[in-house]
């Protein structure tokens, strides 16, 4: 049994009729340009309908962020089985406000999916919501990872934001505040025997690692140094040193104090 851990995050939600503008404003909070990020992203997410867009930026312990925005409209009840688990579907069948809740649960599942960095092989039914009635609640990815979410309704739209929470193993030797690109580049410089000054956030990992063994050394060394754990799904979208530092920060931020 583990003690409950409180995670404090700051969430910025930007809505706009222009998805690119919403993403630019939300990314600005984290110092990330839209051209520098790919999805799924640990701390940024974007959703849009034909009329509106919502972008979310999370500052704090997020290891995956998802947002989904939907207009309320009639939905065929039979489609629930495609995204809800049996117990969630059973709750929905008993719910008086079934039509609205159908759309809300869709946004919850979409946001959960986006908040899971390892979602490549998953479906919406893989995410289990603890309490389908809760507007703010907890769900679990197939790995057991906890994802918290909150849904809000504004006029004819429903918006759900989700953030994944990772836990950190003991033994980190470097405090979060010192995880800068320069600090990570200096460590890599020692492994690669390359001058750290030549490394930039846009440097491709494939260009600096001599072979796959060296890549293994890099990722294991950073995890040991910073006391975090990566998965293959985490590493799949990582192309540049900037991506790697961003992942490292997200994982370290997600550690309970």
């Amino acid at each position, binding site marked *: 049994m583990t003690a409950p851990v409180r995670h404090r995050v700051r969430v910025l939600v930007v809505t706009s009729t222009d998805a690119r503008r919403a993403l630019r404003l939300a990314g600005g909070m984290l110092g990330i340009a839209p051209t520098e990020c790919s999805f799924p992203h640990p701390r940024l997410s974007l959703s849009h309908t034909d009329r509106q867009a919502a972008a979310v930026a999370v500052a704090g312990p997020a290891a995956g962020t998802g947002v989904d925005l939907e207009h309320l409209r009639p939905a065929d009840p039979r489609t629930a089985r495609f995204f809800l688990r049996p117990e969630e579907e059973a709750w929905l069948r008993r719910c008086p406000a079934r039509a609205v809740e159908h759309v809300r649960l869709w946004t919850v599942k979409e946001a959960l999916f986006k908040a899971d960095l390892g979602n490549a092989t998953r479906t919406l039914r893989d995410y289990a919501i603890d309490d389908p009635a809760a507007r703010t609640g907890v769900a679990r990815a197939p790995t057991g990872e906890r994802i918290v979410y909150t849904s809000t309704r504004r006029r004819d739209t429903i918006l759900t934001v989700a953030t994944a929470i990772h836990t950190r193993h003991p033994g980190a030797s470097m405090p979060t505040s010192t995880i800068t690109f320069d600090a990570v580049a200096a460590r890599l410089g020692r492994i690669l025997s390359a001058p750290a000054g030549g490394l930039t956030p846009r440097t491709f990992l494939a260009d600096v690692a001599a072979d796959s*063994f060296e890549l293994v*050394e890099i*990722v*294991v060394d950073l995890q040991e140094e910073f006391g975090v*754990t990566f998965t*293959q799904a985490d590493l799949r979208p990582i192309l540049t040193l900037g991506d790697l530092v961003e992942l490292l920060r997200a994982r370290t931020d997600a550690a309970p104090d």
Partner: protein
Amino acid sequence: MSLADNDRWLLSYYRSSEINGALFFGRVARTIRGPLQANVTHHFADEAAHAHYWTACISDLDSTPLALGRGYQDQYLDAVGMPANLMEVMAITQVFERRVIGQYRRHLRYPGIQAAVRRTIERIMVDERWHISYVRDALAGMAQRYGEAEVAQTLDRFDAADREVYARTLAEYGDRIAFLADPAP
């Protein structure tokens, strides 16, 4: 006594795989902290020593090692992707060591095995059994950090990849090791 072409190729393949193992564990040994550091460094030294044993064995049999390119480990990484963390490094090692022991046992059953080859394999097998043992213990100790189910799933995934890589290796080099006769485990 000189080596037949296929014998020479196979012993060179063993040597090359041990060198790759040493290079891989050298990388891990440089970076790992904590109680596993001593065992992983020992493992790295064993792999390098095994490569030396095979070099000496081939020389005793009046031959020279062939320079082979990509090793078995490279094919593993192609099949399963790069190990993402220390648990995956240990899991891939466990699966690989089991395959190595199976292959060496198979070679020991070959009636025409040269005495020098038998001595070399028997010497290496002592270390390989220890590798299996300490890696198994390390994985058990990692269950708390990574989750018992995640460790088990990773081993299953790597086991499946191992069977695929071995089948591919047999398809590519089967004629080289056909003299070992009995089917692969």
